[in-house]
């Protein structure tokens, strides 16, 4: 593997809980705690977790759409958290985002051409209007839409077509990596598969590096080279797609895998029903955050936050037990 394009070290994000007439911070929610991972070029890293796990906050922090509270994000040898002004603008050219809801991500009053030209204008990449138009046509073609769509408005497009436009917009500035935040969750099954196939094709054709965030393990397994499983702001397990999905070593990953409903009954695992809900993130359990729902929990789990322990060179999990999986 190449040297990492992106190296995230001990990322933290705290949101204050403000109360009172003159709002004061009375506590905070630790949305992301001690998250470390790396992304090589031409690699897709999947981040999987349920709602409230902090997966979106991780993605937004990496792009500095949300300011991280602590930690380092090393991109091409420089710390992104220290960027400001022009450096940050440069960074935005290298790192783009594909949003979840294509209905909310496009300005309804702009034509598709205007939407796709905007990043080129903002980043001052193509000054000539005619050339810009050619580039927009090229972008549309790349995501499988004809150039006729240039004059259309977003409301004339279906959800799948809009998501293609959102993807084209993210790729307009030729970023080095893209954060895709649940890009297919708002789409119908038949259209969802089209978009997944498009992303996979772009990954192969353009050598795109991507952080792919989703709650659907089957989708992540299909698209990602490596997978990080997050729970309550912490990484539970990280490894290659085959390691995490084929031989999971963390009880939470195992439960998550067993909850995927496959229409093929021969592909069913023994269902592990987790008890209860995600704990209150403002008041997380001591020690391992998963222990309150973990079928393998023992007394020691409450005392200390488990460290990441290696299974292989690429595979690690945060669990103190060895007999899991």
């Amino acid at each position, binding site marked *: 593997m190449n040297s990492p394009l992106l190296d995230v070290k001990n990322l933290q994000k705290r949101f204050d809980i403000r109360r009172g007439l003159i709002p004061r911070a009375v506590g905070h929610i630790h949305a992301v705690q001690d998250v470390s991972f790396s992304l090589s070029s031409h690699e897709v890293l999947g981040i999987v977790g349920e*709602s409230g796990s902090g997966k979106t906050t991780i993605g937004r922090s990496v792009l500095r759409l949300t300011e991280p509270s602590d930690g380092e994000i090393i991109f091409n040898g420089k710390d992104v958290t220290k960027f400001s002004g022009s450096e940050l603008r440069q960074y935005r050219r290298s790192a783009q985002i594909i949003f979840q809801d294509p209905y909310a991500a496009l300005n309804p009053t702009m034509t598709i051409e205007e939407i796709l030209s905007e990043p080129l204008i903002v980043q001052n990449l193509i000054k000539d209007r005619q050339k810009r138009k050619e580039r927009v046509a090229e972008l549309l073609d790349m995501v499988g839409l004809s150039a006729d769509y240039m004059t259309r408005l977003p409301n004339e497009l279906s959800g799948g077509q809009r998501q293609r436009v959102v993807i084209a917009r993210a790729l307009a500035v030729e970023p080095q990596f893209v954060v895709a935040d649940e890009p297919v969750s708002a789409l119908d099954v038949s259209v969802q598969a*089209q978009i*997944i196939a498009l992303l996979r094709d772009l990954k192969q054709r353009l050598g795109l590096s991507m952080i792919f965030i989703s*709650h659907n393990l089957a989708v992540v397994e*299909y698209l990602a080279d490596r997978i990080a499983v997050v729970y309550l702001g912490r990484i539970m397990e990280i490894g290659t797609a085959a390691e995490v999905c084929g031989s999971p070593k963390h009880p939470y990953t195992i439960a998550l895998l067993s*909850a995927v409903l496959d229409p*093929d009954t021969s592909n069913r695992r023994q269902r592990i029903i*987790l008890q209860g809900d995600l704990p209150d993130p403002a008041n997380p359990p001591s020690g391992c955050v998963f222990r309150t729902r973990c079928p393998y929990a023992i007394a020691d789990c409450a005392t200390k936050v488990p460290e990441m322990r290696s299974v292989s060179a690429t595979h690690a999990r945060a669990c103190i037990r060895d007999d899991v999986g």
Partner: protein
Amino acid sequence: MTESTVKSYPMPVTGGSPSDGETLLDLRNLSVSYHMAGQQVRAVRNVDINLKSGEVVALVGESGSGKSTIGHALMGLLRYEDKVAVSGTALLRCKDGVTRDLFAISDREMKRVRGNDISIVFQEPMSSLNPLHSIGHQITEALLAHRKLRRNEARERVLYYLRRLGIPNPEQCMARYPHQLSGGMRQRVMIAMALCCESKLLVADEATTALDATVQAQIIDLLKSLQAETGMAILFITHDLGVVSEMADRAIVLYAGQIVETAATRDLFDTPHMPYTRALLEAIPRLGSSQMKGYELRGIPGRAPSAFERVDGCSFNPRCAYATEACRATMPELDMAKREHLVRCLRWKELQLGGCDEFAAARR
């Protein structure tokens, strides 16, 4: 465009469910049209559904296929809308032994049927609960509206169901407000509300869609055991074929407001005859793909027609890989592939599609 008439067909018999074989709901020739922007829009076209006591039937379709409209029509929620026309008959065998046509009875009678004989769990637990009232108040209100019970009796029963649904500390939960509960808890409350009236037919409209995977697994397990225990029939409206295979005895696939295929669940997954059903099965991302070489997920090209668009012939023909001239000219009728298995496709006999064994084969 020639309008198809649906052939009458023998009642499908399902295996596996504790069904007593008696027809509970006989929905015939349901059509729903909306009056929108000066034109008549047909959301549901000539749908027949037969449901026996204790049977779990899934209504599968993508957004805009008309699946929720069918549920709402059954609940009598469309009767107050003056821009919606519902036609057809829905014969429901009520608890008092009388069979009523839900589309012909008065509003007052419908009010009695609703909650007593048929209940619904809505999709969005966030927006279906009133934020201004406590959980306890809302559930007991629903129960008291349909049952002659004393307040403390109602409270006892609500507590029983909350406990059955695995809500820890139900007394405390009754005093809480919707925003204080998680999504999974809210959905449990919605289900408890629908169950406490003990009706024979439950319409579950995307009841697990908004939930996280692990919570969805909890709720499905719960619904399965409650169903087995009470013997209620469930019409499970969903777009998730994984949920269908988990829950349903029989599945009905909808496309553009029409039934395109219906069969016992296992049969539908093993030998789908309609190209749409087959393509839908192929479009589901499945676990295990990282261990398979050369496996490609395939989407269905194009998109489903909106209710405004009229497609000549078979409504799936613009997206179908097997479409011929004949498919563009004539609307196929529901044909019987075998007992209990109906398919709306001109070419199903020659195609003999079969299941998606590529995946299973690739996995081996």
